[in-house]
């Protein structure tokens, strides 16, 4: 449906998009992922005919956007990064304007009503866009993209600036659109693509660094296995014991205490399952393992790994960044633990109270 061939874009001497090619099949939902300034928006702007490429071709359902811009644009619904709304129009006026602008042939009233239903703006149709919140403006922008029921829908960072509830709504909307449209979605939020897309294309510094099915990408990079283990006993002894197990590549104690037990993060070498060995070795030494929890590699790790592999020159910087990230993550899991404990304690206290009242 969308075909990009050797696309290159220069802004003066600045290379924004560097010789990228990919294809999106009909009915696919593809996430276009990359850090800020990676060339996502530039690519999308070229795809939709807003900018032209310095080199390369874009075909929308076989129609070249350069030689037949009108024909190609008719097939695309596009939501740019900032919803392109006129603040001095009401939602209704805006949608009608778009309906006319796109030369839509569908029955006007029903079509617009249907779209408003889908994006849940039916109740604000008479209000000025000026007075709408960011979330509603975004939805009006989405509605605009859906007018004329184009086969290809392109969203540039559709959930930026929305609150969590709106994000969930927009995501479920995109998922439902994906059923009978070709959807291309750009974002720098990793959960988003994992939640919505069949396929992820990761772009960094204008180059495609990964292009695979969502589940494959998660699996492919997940080379290390990490666990949080809760073991009773002296911290130093436990660490020494775990280190002595073949296949363990990394151990670290977390500052979490549960009675006399501490939590440790253990990483194994790729392809080795150390869980049984871990259990028996510890039990042989009389150290009770009272918890084992697999910590999957998050999408952030995957992303950093993928991007890292493709930029050797800035290794040091990213290594430092990764370390910070890891520390941050641990901090977060501790916070979760503390939160859980507090919640549990409060629960217990409440229960005791109600018992004593009885």
């Amino acid at each position, binding site marked *: 449906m969308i075909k990009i061939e050797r696309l290159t874009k220069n802004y003066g001497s600045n290379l924004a998009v560097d010789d990228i090619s990919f294809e999106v099949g009909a009915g696919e939902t593809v996430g276009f992922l990359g850090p800020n300034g990676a060339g996502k928006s530039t690519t999308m702007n070229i795809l939709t005919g807003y900018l032209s490429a310095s080199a390369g071709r874009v075909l929308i359902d076989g129609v070249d956007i350069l030689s037949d811009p009108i024909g190609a644009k008719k097939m695309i619904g596009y939501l740019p990064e900032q919803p392109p709304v*006129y603040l001095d129009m009401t939602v209704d006026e805006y949608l009608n304007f778009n309906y006319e602008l796109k030369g839509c042939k569908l029955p006007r009233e029903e079509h617009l009503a249907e779209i408003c239903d889908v994006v849940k703006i039916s109740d604000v149709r008479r209000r000025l866009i000026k007075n709408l919140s960011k979330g509603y403006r975004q939805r009006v922008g989405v509605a605009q993209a859906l007018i004329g029921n184009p086969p290809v829908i392109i969203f540039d960072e559709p959930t930026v600036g929305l609150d969590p509830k709106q994000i969930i709504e927009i995501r479920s909307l995109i998922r439902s659109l994906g059923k009978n449209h070709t959807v291309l979605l750009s974002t720098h939020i990793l959960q988003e693509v994992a939640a919505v897309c069949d396929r992820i294309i990761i772009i960094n510094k204008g180059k495609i660094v990964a292009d695979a099915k969502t589940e494959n990408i998660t699996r492919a990079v997940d080379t290390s296995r990490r666990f949080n283990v809760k073991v009773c006993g002296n911290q130093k002894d436990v660490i020494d014991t775990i280190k002595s197990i073949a296949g363990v590549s990394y151990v670290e104690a977390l500052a979490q205490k549960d009675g006399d037990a501490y939590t440790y993060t253990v990483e194994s070498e790729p392809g080795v399952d150390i869980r049984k060995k871990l259990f028996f070795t510890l039990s042989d030494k009389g150290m009770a393992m009272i918890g084992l929890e697999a910590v999957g590699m998050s999408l952030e790790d995957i992303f950093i790994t993928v991007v890292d592999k493709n930029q050797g020159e800035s290794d040091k910087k990213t290594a430092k960044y990764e370390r910070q990230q890891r520390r941050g993550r641990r901090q977060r899991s501790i916070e979760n633990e503390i939160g859980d404990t507090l919640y549990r304690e409060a629960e217990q206290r409440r229960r005791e109270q109600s018992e004593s009242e009885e």
Partner: protein
Amino acid sequence: MFAIYKKELRSYFTNPHGYVFAGIFLALSALVFSYTTLLMQSYDTTLYFTVMVFALVVLVPLLTMRLFTEEKKLRTEQLLLTAPVTITGMVLGKFLAAFTLFFSCTALTCINFIPLYLIAAAERGNLPYDTTHIGPVTPQIIGCLIGVVLIGAAFIAIGTFVSSLTENQLAAAIITIAVLLALVGIGLFANVIDVYAIRMALGWISILGRFSNLSSGIFDIASIIYFVSLAFLFVFLTVRVYEKRRWS
């Protein structure tokens, strides 16, 4: 194109710009008209039209300053340029919307002539114009109206072009005023130059010089073509501005 035309025309009436333009234009024309004809006890309307051309220098930017600057600021430009509309269609839609408002206002100012004709009729008594030659010269008025409308079109095209170059309304307005003022003033400036060739060239470009042909009742094809091609040239240049942005 029609959608954009409609949208722009509508926006003149949902924003102050349209009202300010229409209000000032109509009030000023009435004022200038009564000063130059009724109070001066003259049937000659040339001065009125000349003053109105000067007024357009300040008034036209009101119409054109937001045409493209606003789109750029709101990022709605992306919407128009990714919609199945040609760039020419987009520019023409905007140009015609501004021109429509200007044209309607000019048409409305024709009310000004009614008292002049009534006074002339009263002064002539029962005698026809052909024998007495008392009253306004109708061909001259028609020539002037055609001239003002065409000059307005050229000015609007220039304003449209300037607004496509910048993101700031105020900058667009000021630059437009400067350009228009130069175009109008060049004729006055030409009179003080001694070198014949330069004086001729400046006189050729001069808006007022060409307008004076029309305002004396001569149907000057060259002047009409000059104004029309000025409008076309700047509409074309605006289209090029957008085409170029797509290409570089």
